[in-house]
C-alpha cells in the first residue's frame, strides 16, 4: 500500500520519498565484465526525462590488464548501437610516488579530446589504470538532461586513478554529445591501447537529481 499526499507519493513499494533531491537508481558491480551498460528501461535503469541531471559514481574500478583507459560511449537507440558524435576537452593533474613529474597536462588525441568523433571518450588516459591488486580508479560523471530533443547533451567528469607507473592522476573531462536526439543508454569499458580488457571489479552507481 502506498501513501499519497496532494498527488505526491510519500512511500510506496517499500521505499520512502524522504525529501532528498538525490535518488539512487541502479548499482552495477563489475565481475570480469567486458562492458558495463546502463540502458533506460532495462534492469530497472532510469535514464530519460525523469531527471534533468544524472550522476554516475565510479568506485574502485580495477582492470584485468595493466595501463587501461576507462572510457564511455552513449546511444540514442536503447543500446542497439553506440557511438554518437561527441566533442570534448581533457585536463589532467598528476604526481608520481617518487615525487617527480608533478604537473598539469592538457590531453589531446583520439581518445581524449574528441572533435565530433563517434569514438570512445577516455577518463584515465596515459598513463592508464594499473592492474596491481591495489590499483584502481574512482570518480564522478554528471550528465545533463539526456532526454532533451532541442539541445546537445553536456557532461562533466572528475575521475582519479592509480596509474601503471605509480602516480596519482586526476582527470577533468567535459564535453557534449552533439545530437538533438534523446540519449537513453551509456556503456563503459576498459582498453589498454591494443585491445579491450575486462573490468575485474568495482562498481558504478547511477543517481537521478530532482
Amino acid at each position, binding site marked *: 500500500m502506498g501513501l499519497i499526499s496532494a498527488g505526491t507519493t510519500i512511500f510506496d513499494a517499500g521505499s520512502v520519498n524522504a525529501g532528498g533531491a538525490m535518488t539512487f537508481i541502479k548499482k552495477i558491480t563489475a565481475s570480469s565484465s567486458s562492458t558495463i551498460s546502463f540502458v533506460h528501461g532495462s534492469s530497472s535503469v532510469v535514464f530519460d526525462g525523469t531527471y534533468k541531471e544524472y550522476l554516475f559514481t565510479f568506485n574502485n574500478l580495477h582492470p584485468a590488464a595493466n595501463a587501461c583507459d576507462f572510457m564511455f560511449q552513449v546511444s540514442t537507440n536503447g543500446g542497439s548501437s553506440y557511438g554518437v558524435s561527441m566533442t570534448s576537452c581533457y585536463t589532467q593533474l598528476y604526481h608520481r610516488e617518487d615525487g617527480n613529474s608533478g604537473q598539469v597536462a592538457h590531453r589531446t588525441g583520439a581518445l581524449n579530446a574528441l572533435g565530433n568523433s563517434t569514438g570512445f571518450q577516455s577518463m584515465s588516459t596515459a598513463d592508464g589504470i594499473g592492474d596491481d591488486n591495489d590499483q584502481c580508479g574512482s570518480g564522478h560523471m554528471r550528465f545533463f538532461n539526456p532526454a532533451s530533443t532541442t539541445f*546537445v547533451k553536456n557532461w562533466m567528469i572528475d575521475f582519479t586513478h592509480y596509474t601503471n607507473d605509480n602516480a596519482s592522476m586526476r582527470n577533468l573531462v567535459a564535453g557534449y554529445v552533439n545530437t538533438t536526439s534523446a540519449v537513453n543508454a551509456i556503456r563503459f569499458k576498459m582498453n589498454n591501447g591494443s585491445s579491450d580488457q575486462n573490468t575485474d571489479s568495482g562498481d558504478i552507481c547511477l543517481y537521478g537529481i530532482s
Partner: protein
Amino acid sequence: MAVVSNGTTIIDAGSLGASIASGPMNLLSSQTASGSANISFTSGITSAYKEYLFSFHNIHPATDGAKFGFQFNASGESGFNETLTSMYWRTYNNEAANSAGTGYVTSEDQAQGTAFTILDGGVGADADQCTAGHVKLFDPSNTSHVKHFIFRGTHYDVNNFVADVFVGGYVNTTAAITEMQFKFSSGNIDAGTIKMYGIK
C-alpha cells in the same frame, strides 16, 4: 489530508513536515527561463544550510556569444554588485579537434570587482547550443568571514568548441548573502533551468 503525530506534522500537502529528517541534499527552488532578462533567487538563502548548490542546464542565450554569469546581494542591499575576488581557468577543444588549449584567463577574473562573475567564454545561440554547470556557495549567512564560491561548468561555445571552466572566489563581505542573480552579459536567457539546493 495531513498526518500529525503528537503535535508534529509528519506529512501535509504532498511533502514531509519541516521538522522531519530528509535527505542531505534538498531542492529548494527551481526556475525556468523563457525570454528572461535574468533568473534571481531572492529568498531561501538563509542559515538553514551551510552550503548551497545552484545547478543549471540547457541555458540558452538570445544573443550569440553572450557570457553567462552571477552576482550577489548582501542582506538589505540591492543592485547585485557585491565586491568579489575570483579566478578563472578553462580547457577547450574545437569540433575539428585542431584547436585546443588550457590555461588561466586574466580577462575573466576579478580583483575586488563588482561585476558579474563570468562562467564561460561566450555561449553560442544556435538552436542546440547551451551551457550547464554547478555553482556552490558556502555558508552565506556567516557574519564573520567572507563567502566562498566555486564553479565548474561546460558550454558549447559560440566558436563551436567545448570548454570546461573552473571558477573560484569569495564575496569580500562579512554581511550575510541573501540573494543571487544569473544573467547573460547581453540579451535574455531564452531557455534553461536553474535549481537551488540546500546541502546539510
